[in-house]
């Protein structure tokens, strides 16, 4: 698999990243090198092997659903880049008709 410029643009959008023209060439070459390195796995026969997804042996870990560890509105907004004391503020989402 060789990535091209269009794929990079598409992936960048999915990842919500901007890749500017100056970075694109180096990124493309790094990603292609890394992908061809990853393709070494194709040498292995994995037919009939179940994927290993969970590392924990714990099953059905339950606890009572009690309200605790609450934080105040002030604490919740403490790290916000923009807020009005009550809500997080973001750029306009809906344009005026």
């Amino acid at each position, binding site marked *: 698999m060789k990535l091209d410029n269009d794929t990079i643009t598409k992936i960048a959008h999915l990842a919500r990243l901007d890749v500017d023209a100056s970075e694109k060439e180096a990124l493309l070459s790094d990603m292609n090198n890394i992908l061809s390195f990853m393709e070494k796995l194709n040498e292995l026969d994995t037919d009939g092997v179940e994927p290993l997804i969970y590392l924990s042996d714990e099953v059905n870990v339950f606890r009572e659903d009690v309200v605790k560890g609450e934080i105040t509105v002030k604490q919740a907004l403490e790290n916000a*880049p923009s807020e009005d004391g009550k809500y997080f503020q973001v750029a306009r989402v809906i344009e005026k008709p």
Partner: protein
Amino acid sequence: MREYNSLSEVQHDLQNGAITLPAIVDHYINRIKNEAHLNAFIEVFDQEARSEALKIAKKLEEGKAGRLAGMVVGLKDIICYKDHGIAVGSRILQNYKSIYSATVVERLIAEDAIIIGRTNCDEFAMGGSNENSYFGHVKNFADNSKVPGGSSGGSAVAVQAGLCLACLGTDTGGSVRQPAAFCGVVGLKPTYGRVSRHGVVAYASSFDQVGPITKSVEDAALLMEIIAGPDEYDSTASKSKVPPYFSELNNSTGKKHIAYLSETLSNGGIDAEVKSMALAAIKRLQDEGHTVEPVSFQLLDYVVPTYYIITMAEASSNLARYDGIHFGYRSKTAPTLEATYKKSRSEGFGAEVKRRIMLGTFVLSAGYYDAYYGKAQKVRRLIREKTDEILKKYDFILLPTTPTPAFGIGEKVDDPVTMYLADIFTVQASLGGFPAISLPVGNNTAGLPLGLQFIGKRFGESDLMAFSKKFMDLLEQDSVKSPAKGNIVV
């Protein structure tokens, strides 16, 4: 102040009045200042550490102090500590303040450890050289032109240079063990699920584990005993009972069966002195009557690609939360919501993090999921099964922690694949969730530390640490007998 190698030495001196806790804290704060060029700490909590020292000194007088009284600890800048900054080495969290503490931090504080500051690391724990931190690279105390390893590079240097007694780091693919090896200190990655991840910033959630970086196996065991165990805030934290690791340290009796992986020593990338260090260790153990045998592990060349596919996939998902909306950096020049996401992330993340998010997004994308991510998950099972099979016959697996000693700053930054291959000996344990420890066994002829690694059975930390202590005691005796040789002859 004399240099302490374990908490028991500190507590002994505190008890007989040879030193006071405030004096210890002052000493470390001065050391951090004097060695500021190492860039090991991102922030020092000096005033707070001093006032805690007074409080705990009083508790000590009254006989009410916890088990970690006297221990001065650094936290990798990835572990939340309420009302303290945490940036995970990233611009995107530069001004972030934790609103709660990680479970491991609460447990340290409950036993009267003093937290002296937060240590530098690769951004979001992605890196093996501490060159990916927004707060600048960290220098190895043994040789300032060399990297300290990563991602817990600041933590390893802090312990190496005597800036604190111990640190908590995190290990996803070697991030505790590899810097421990490069810096000549002890680093343990616990079994996946042994230690709670609550309050630890996520990189790759099926790998991440908090682990101690210390001068002695003794302190690693003590810290593990305190931080390990079930946590109602982390459902992947095992419910199984935590053994009294510290008191079980002297339980390593009898002769062990140890496997070493032939492929690790015939690997083309292995440094000659690292190889002779491993061979010397094998011989020393055989001389003691342990069985140490070669075992073939033909999957060695596949561990690094498998590791990177899965961790990049998990990282791309975990790091989706940094969107510039609720917390973290927000670009000043974004007119729309979508531009807020894109610009905040692009300006906030560094190059390596972006590379991994891009590749992670790709391997999870429609059409490529099965070929990359699905394939890697299958190989992950093969790696775990093969390792389990070896550990059914043997107590431990022995291998060098790293193929080379610490490399030069800047040496590998332009070639990600070469940088990733430096993880070849540490990711096997990570992929299978096995515990593994890196032990400082001596220096090479250039004076750079070398690390030897043992992988244990899952939840077999007690045996692993007890055996490690026995081995380190043996090397200590050897060096007393013949000091000129150092620990292990390489």
